[in-house]
């Protein structure tokens, strides 16, 4: 069967690098794709995107003009055409509005159509909040499972197990219902052998969890690994990755995220929560026709879902919306702003009602103090900012180097073994130090905590002078021995976290970056804070301290330094600006710390930008070669459109289709011989005057359908794109009209247009290709991939690293 043959051939030739447009091969099996409806289910539906005016009169008579199912959908690993999707949505809206005047049912339909966006946001918020609650509670329980088990009810973690019993002031963690593994097996919890047994059980559980996670990822949903944010950024800019936001990815990501976090690895759950929320958004979009069929509208919903994801991760709805606006989304219309906020609020409210941490808190490390700070403390805050920037640049460089190694060498062939080795290393190094043994969120919570009279942890073991205490307002005190022990343990923990996170981020389990960066920053901040506090206590007569920090006053809050350090490190790695500050101040619940946070965030961003231009997510996008056109950078070179367009001088001329003189056979052979994803249509080969642009996928579907369903279509039938058929002798076979799949308004620029303007057009309009004309005649084509390669070339990077279309 020669049809099957040409399909297979066209697939195989798609891997050559010199083609203008590379695609993953034509495939008509719609049942393969998660999102596309199979051929036999749907018949008709929406009006054609640009022929509305033309076809409107003949719509009742000529049902062949109705668009075929599959026309207008996209291949996997291809870019969508934003202009086409938006105009399709406007057409649909116009049709519904015009029909709404006809009957009450149509009116109700139009009202429900307008309302469907809000209903979708509500559902997304509910689902994202519930899943986040499930993840939080399960992760909390499984993390404690490494240390012991609750005998009374096994589903309680340590804190809930000891909830009812009275514990002592100094030993708040011990209660009879909770037994550590050594207590369970040996009967007692003291002694060297019990310690070794605890150590062993900790490592065994950690390995078990991480191995289970990587096996589930490999076996069921390979797209569920990693953070997800670089891929979601690419998807939101218009790329299609089928299955990345599907139901199996959602299930596996939720389950394995809990396992990965509980295994003690140095990773967080915020980035994967954004992926989970976007999966929820994508799945719920299928309930509403308006969003299921239109890729541009769907991306609006995904932006809102990303906001909901960050909102439940940090308990920060406004921060979530700003994160979606700044980091994740590409186009963010104002309508999306209000809807994202609604989704984020609903998600936060759902999470709060599930109440995963008790006390109606949303995040484990919510800070509740409001101590004032002095202007001179800005110096250590800026120092923390510099540290954050340096660490961020160092982390990005080393992580990208390691990931590149994983991608290109033999290291990448053993993902399960890699996870095993990294978990074993992490668990073996983490257990001896109590600050790395506890989960990272708990560590951050303890570091953010301001030491009051009620705290009895090692970090708060100051020398107390009871005569001068007045309630909870403790003055600066001398550090006791506990504090000194805690300081060097924290320094070791800092070293360990700095190095092990480089190898953990990017492994084949769901891994986030926010919590480890915040932990590094919090440890550094707390160390600096305690140092400054002790300096102020022992040298309160120095000039810099005497003005504001007299003896007996409470001037330095090390918890604040930890918070500022966390913000600085997170800003250095991700290069977030406004969203970072808003998330941090929503975490603290007060406006008084905005200035220190901003100072640290700005300093860290400037220092990090001076060393390396990109944040971690952009660096990963570049490493993977995703076709993401960076919207923030300026294109500052003086090249022209004709320097970038294809065909170049040495290439064969542009492959075009004429508007009414090619047969079905000719078109099929063009499709066979080339792998371009679209062809310009011209009046004739001599004149090269442009008529429009037709996509490969649409051509294949229409021709196949015509061969099967329309009678009289043979290989010598003429294909015409004009409104009326060309005059031909009566003995010729019946002709095939394909005007409905032709885009009559392709974008064109002249060959002398500067590339700055062309890049701007691609960014602002979301184009996929742009035709180049000279003196009114078609000369060549510029595709998004050409633009990306050109930018890479101008920046002296490897232009061949742009892989996808």
């Amino acid at each position, binding site marked *: 069967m020669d049809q099957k043959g040409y399909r297979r051939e066209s697939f195989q030739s798609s891997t050559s690098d010199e083609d203008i447009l590379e695609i993953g091969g034509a495939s008509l099996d719609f049942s393969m794709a998660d999102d596309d409806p199979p051929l036999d289910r*749907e018949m008709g539906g929406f009006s054609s995107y640009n022929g509305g005016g033309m076809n409107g009169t003949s719509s009742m008579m000529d*049902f062949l003009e109705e668009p075929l199912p599959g026309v207008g959908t996209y291949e996997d690993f291809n870019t969508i055409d934003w202009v086409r999707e938006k105009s399709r949505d406007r057409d649909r809206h116009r049709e519904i509005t015009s029909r709404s005047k006809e009957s009450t049912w149509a009116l109700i339909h139009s009202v429900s159509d307008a309302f469907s966006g809000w209903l979708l946001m509500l559902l997304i918020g509910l689902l994202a909040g519930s899943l986040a609650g499930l993840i939080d509670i399960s992760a909390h329980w499984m993390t404690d499972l490494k240390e012991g088990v609750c005998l009374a009810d096994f589903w309680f973690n340590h804190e*809930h197990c000891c909830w009812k019993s009275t514990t002592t002031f100094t030993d708040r963690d011990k209660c009879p219902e909770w037994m550590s593994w050594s207590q369970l097996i040996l009967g007692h919890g003291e002694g060297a052998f019990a310690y070794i047994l605890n150590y062993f059980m900790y490592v065994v559980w950690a390995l078990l969890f991480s191995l289970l996670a990587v096996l589930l990822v490999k076996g069921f949903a390979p797209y569920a690994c990693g953070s997800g944010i670089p*891929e979601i950024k690419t998807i939101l800019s218009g790329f299609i990755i089928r299955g990345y936001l599907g139901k199996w990815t959602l299930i596996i990501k939720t389950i394995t995220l809990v396992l990965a976090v509980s295994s003690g690895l140095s990773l967080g759950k915020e980035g994967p929560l954004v992926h989970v929320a976007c999966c929820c958004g994508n799945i719920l979009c299928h309930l509403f026709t308006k969003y299921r069929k239109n890729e541009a509208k769907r991306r609006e919903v995904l932006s809102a879902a990303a906001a909901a994801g960050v909102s439940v991760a940090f308990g920060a709805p406004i921060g979530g919306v700003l994160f979606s606006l700044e980091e994740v989304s590409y186009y963010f219309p104002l309508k999306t702003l209000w809807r994202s906020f609604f989704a984020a609020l609903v998600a936060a409210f759902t999470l709060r009602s599930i109440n995963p941490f008790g006390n109606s808190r949303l995040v484990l490390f919510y800070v509740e103090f409001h101590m004032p700070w002095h202007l001179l403390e800005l110096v250590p805050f800026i120092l923390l900012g510099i540290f954050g920037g340096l660490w961020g640049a160092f982390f990005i460089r080393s992580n990208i180097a390691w*990931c590149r190694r994983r991608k290109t060498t033999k290291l990448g062939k053993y993902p399960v073994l890699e996870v095993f080795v990294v978990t074993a290393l992490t668990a073996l190094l983490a257990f001896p130090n109590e600050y790395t043994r506890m989960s990272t969120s708990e560590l951050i919570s303890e570091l953010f905590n301001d030491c009051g009279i009620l705290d009895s942890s090692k970090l708060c073991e100051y020398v107390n002078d009871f005569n001068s205490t007045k309630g909870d307002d403790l003055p600066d005190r001398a550090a006791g021995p506990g504090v000194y022990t805690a300081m060097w343990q924290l320094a070791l923990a800092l070293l360990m976290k700095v190095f092990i996170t480089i190898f953990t981020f990017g492994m084949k389990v769901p891994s986030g970056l926010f919590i480890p960066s915040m932990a590094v920053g919090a440890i550094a901040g707390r160390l600096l804070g305690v140092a400054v506090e002790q300096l102020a206590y022992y040298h309160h007569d120095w000039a810099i301290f005497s003005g504001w920090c007299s003896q007996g006053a409470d001037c330095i809050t090390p918890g604040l330094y930890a918070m500022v350090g966390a913000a600085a490190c997170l800003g250095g790695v991700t290069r977030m600006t406004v969203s970072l500050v808003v998330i941090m101040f929503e975490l603290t619940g007060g406006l008084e710390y905005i200035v220190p946070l901003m100072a640290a965030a700005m300093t860290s961003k400037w220092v990090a930008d001076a060393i390396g231009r990109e944040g971690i997510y952009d660096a990963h996008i570049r490493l993977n070669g995703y076709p993401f056109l960076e919207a923030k950078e300026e294109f500052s070179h003086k090249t022209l459109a004709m320097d970038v367009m294809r065909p170049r001088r040495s290439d064969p001329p542009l492959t075009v289709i004429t508007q009414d003189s090619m047969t079905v056979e000719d078109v099929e052979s063009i499709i066979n011989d080339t792998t371009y994803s679209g062809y310009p249509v011209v009046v004739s080969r001599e004149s090269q005057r442009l008529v429009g642009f037709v996509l490969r996928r649409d051509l294949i579907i229409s021709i196949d359908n015509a061969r099967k369903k329309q009678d009289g279509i043979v290989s010598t039938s003429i294909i015409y794109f004009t409104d009326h058929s060309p005059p031909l002798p009566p003995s010729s076979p019946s002709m095939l009209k394909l005007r409905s799949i032709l885009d009559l308004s392709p974008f064109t620029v002249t060959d002398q247009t500067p590339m700055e303007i062309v890049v701007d057009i691609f960014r602002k309009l979301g184009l996929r290709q742009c035709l180049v004309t000279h003196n009114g005649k078609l000369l060549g084509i510029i595709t998004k991939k050409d633009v990306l390669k050109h930018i890479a070339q101008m920046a002296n990077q490897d232009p061949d690293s742009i892989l996808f279309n």
Partner: protein
Amino acid sequence: VFPQASMMFAQCFQRRVSSMLLMALLCCILSSPAEASKSSEDIRCKCICPPYRNISGNIYNKNVLQKDCNCLHVVEPMPVPGNDVEAYCLLCECKYEERSTTTIKVIIIIYLSVVGALLLYMAFLVLVDPLIRKPDAYTQPLHNEEENEDARSLAAALPTAGARANTVLERVEGAQQRWKRQVQEQRKTVFDRHKMLS
């Protein structure tokens, strides 16, 4: 036109029903923890009192309502004599805490059952499935050969072969095969070719 319209209506109806089912399920999941009656075990007032003079620090728990959550109601027996009670109570901090044991129990059990189900399914796919597929041994080499080139050509052949696969079992089989091929494609993209997510 009419069979088209009736199919369209059936599709529309099916989608509405599935969306309503999903909403009902969501409401059930969310309302069950929310309506769980607050048993007396699930609320407590926790008062932390620091060391005072020669009395060591202590933590007091009592299951009282929020209005009674203060030092006087919870700290019993009061370790200081009457005139010192106020000074002592100023140092103590009392917090009202609530939790829902039903929610925690339900969520942990759901999570463990999903993990168990996935493990069982993985064991089934790895161990039992190849044994069941053995009767189709003569088609196996054909499958493997096409797998090397790519699975899409196999997919192209399927609609023609399984056009009348209408029984539930055959449809489930078809869906499972499609899903397996999808996962294989994804695995190749991520693990073998390192095209994504490296």
